Structures are given as C-alpha cells and as structure tokens.
C-alpha cells in the first residue's frame, strides 16, 4: 500500500462565529475516487476550497503528495507557506466549479491554453495540440473557436473540465459540477467524468447531490454533517445500509426530493 496523496490532520475553519470544520481528519489514497455528500453547510465544499487554497485553514495540517500545503519546512521548522510555495503546491491540484467560471472574453481553445502557456511556459503550438486532445475527449473539439456565451451549461462545464485537465494535476476536485445545469444536460457532464475515471488514474474528489452518480463513480463515500465525517464506506454500504441515523435521515430526504440512488 502506498502513502496517501492527501492527508488532512485535524483542520479547523470558521467563517466568523460559524465553525464550518472542527478538527476534521481524513486521508485519500492515490487514484482513489471519493464522493463527499451531506447537507448544505456541512463543510464538504469548504474542504475542496481549502485544498485549492481558496480558503485558508485556522488550524491543523494538510499534506499533499507528502508535502505540507499550508506550511513550509525551513531548517526543520514549519513556517506558514508563502505565495511561491502555494504556487508550487497548486500544480498538483485542479478544480472544476459549480458555475464553470470560464473566462467569458476568451474562446474555448484560449480558455484551455491560457494557464499552461502562462504557468508552465508551454509554447502555443504544443498547448493548442494538447488542448484539442482534451477538448476532443470532452466532446467539444468542434466548438474550439466558440465563445463561452455561445455554449450551453453542459458544454461550458465540459470545457471547464478540459481546462482544469490541461495542467495535468494529480488531484481533481469537482465542486457540485452539475448542480447549476438543466436536468437534460447533467448526463453529458457525468459521462465525461465517467470516462475520466475509467481512463486516468487521477485522484478525484467529488462534492455532489447526484447520489446515483456518486454510487457508481466513487470508491468511497464520505457523509458529512456539521463539519464532521459522520460515516464513510463503500458506496453500497453508505447508500444501501447506512448505519448512522443522520445518514439515513439525509438519504431519505434526498430520495423524497426525487433523486435516484
């Protein structure tokens, strides 16, 4: 068994007086596909945002790939990470957002090539070749020259996935990537993610309300409530035989709301 690629050790995070995460610890193995489920405000999205360095932690430690994320080792001492350290660590992580966050002033192709050209110094020709491969994978190669405003939500999200992949991260974070989509567009995004899971050995963390997809996609499901992991296990265990009362209540509510499990 290899070492975990993500090691979260009793982290804390508050927004004002509201404690979102309180002494949370968890580990993720390389290549693992993880689904984070739970009611809103339970802290699952906050974890992704912390891993992407969009939110800072108030306490605790995070290690990515054997290195501290928010700390640097200098002469045997742990110091708060500076921007340079964070930049180096971010190379290992990519994120896809609920609202796509495409750059509206750049065409699809430029959205994908911008970061590799700027952060890795990839020459334009090479960046475009790679971008076209990725756009082909997500089924968007024929829209390479379109502007984001000309795309549907599902298409935008597929471009956003290609854009995150262009930096070849080891870890991909998916933050409710289908929540903002019309129901008929959800499947095309999920299909891309299935393909990604099947064809790569990337570590993937998924925050989702699509329980059916979480069941098929994940190796392990974590149920969050009030900043803690209430229950975790194989998808079948969590979805068919949840042990904790709160998990049962949450799933019942979700099913009542019409979601397929």
């Amino acid at each position, binding site marked *: 068994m290899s070492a975990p690629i993500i090691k979260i050790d009793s982290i804390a995070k508050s927004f004002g007086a509201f404690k979102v995460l309180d002494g949370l610890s968890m580990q993720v193995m390389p290549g693992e596909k993880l689904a984070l489920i739970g009611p809103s405000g339970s802290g699952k999205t906050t974890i992704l945002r912390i891993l992407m360095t969009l939110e800072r932690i108030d306490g605790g430690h995070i290690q990515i790939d054997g290195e501290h994320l928010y700390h640097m080792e200098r002469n045997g001492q742990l110091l708060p990470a500076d921007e340079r350290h964070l930049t180096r660590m*971010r190379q290992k992580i990519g994120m896809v957002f609920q609202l796509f966050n*495409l750059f*509206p002033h750049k065409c699809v192709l430029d959205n994908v090539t911008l970061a590799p050209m700027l*952060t890795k110094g990839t020459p334009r020709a090479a960046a475009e070749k790679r971008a076209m491969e990725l756009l082909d994978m997500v089924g968007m190669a024929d829209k390479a020259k379109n502007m*984001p*405003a000309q795309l549907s939500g599902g298409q935008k999200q597929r471009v956003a996935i290609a854009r995150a992949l262009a930096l070849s991260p080891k870890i991909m974070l998916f933050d409710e990537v289908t929540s903002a989509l019309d129901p008929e567009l959800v499947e095309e995004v999920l299909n891309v993610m299935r393909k990604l899971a099947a064809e790569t050995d990337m570590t993937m963390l998924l925050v989702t309300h699509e329980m059916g997809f979480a069941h098929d996609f994940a190796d392990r499901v974590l149920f969050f409530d009030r900043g803690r992991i209430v229950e975790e296990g194989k998808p079948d265990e969590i979805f068919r035989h949840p042990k904790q009362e709160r998990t049962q209540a949450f799933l019942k509510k979700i099913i009542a709301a019409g979601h397929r499990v």
Partner: protein
Amino acid sequence: MTDWSGYLYLILQGALVTVELTLMGSVLALIMAFVAGLGRLSRFFAVRALATAYIEFFRGTSIFVQLFWVYFVLPLAGFELTPLQAGVLGLGLNVGAYGAEVVRGAVQSIGKEQYEACVALNLGRWQGMRHVILPQALLLMLPTFGNNAIELLKATSVVSLISLADMTFQANIVRSQTGNTMLPFATILILYFAMASAISWGVRTLERRMARGLDGVRT
C-alpha cells in the same frame, strides 16, 4: 471687410494645439488611471496610501489652480516646463485621478468566481490581472473613459491662461482684433462639438468591438 480666412487659419492652428493637448493629456491620464487605480488595490499599505493621496488631491482641487502650480510654481523648485508640457501634465494628472476610480471600480466589479478560477489555474496575481480581470474590466471602463476624455477636451481651454495658444485662446485673439464675438465663438463651438463627437464615436466603436461574443460582463 475683414479677411476671415486668415482668422479662420488662426483658429485652426489653435484647434491643432487643442487636439494635441487632448491626445497627449489622455495618454498621460490613462497611464495615471491604471497606475493609481491598481495602486489602490495593492496589497501594500504604502502603495495604497500614495495612490489615494494622489487621487484625492487632484480630484479635490481645481484644475485651474493645479495648472498654475505646474506652470508658475514648479519652476521655483527648479522644474522649468514649456506651456505645452505644463498643460499636458496638469490635464493628465487631473483627469487621471478621476480615471483611477473608474479603473478601481471596474476591477472590483469583476466577479469573485473569475479570481477563483485564476487561483485554481495557478495564475499569479499579475498574470490573472493582466489576462483575465483587466480585459473584462476594460469593457466596463470604456464608457466612463469616453466621458473623461471629453471632459479633458473641454478642460483644455483653461491652458490659454498659461499662454498656450489653443483654440479658445485664438478665438479670443480674433475677437479682440475684429470686435466680432459671434463668428469666432460659433466656429470653436462647432469645432469642440466635432472633436467631442469624434471621441464618442471612437469609444463606442471600441466598445462594440470588444463586446463582440462576450456576455455576462455587461448585464
């Protein structure tokens, strides 16, 4: 009968000075707007304080007084400027202070999600600003920049007070030499309006070109 063509030539010469002042002043104003506008958003207190001091000072005092300082007081400190240099400096610094607030407002109005996408794609602060935030913010700045440029054009008439022979200055000469107010001032009225219209048209064209294919920035 007065020889109007000679006087018209005089006014056109002045118009050239006005155009020159407007163009050079606008370039300086644009530079100052970005320097001070982005300076106000700096992480460093000293930069923010400096930018704020500049903006508040130049917005808070009259262009007339500023021009006199630049032209008559600075030489006492050893900075000798030609009237044109003084005019460009005064106008550029003054209008740049207004532009700085336009830059700051536009940059701050770009959604948080764009900044987060920059972080997630590991762009540096400046890279994100240069390639993602500013191109979108620029579109929001343009209409107000157009206003500022027209304001600058009209403010150029105050340079006649530091003996620069701009359009208004020349019209006054014609007036005092011919005793006719109507003709020279009708002429420069039309010329100012034509110049302002040219600026409006230019900015609108630029705006339309930049907005092509874009949505979500202007709602």
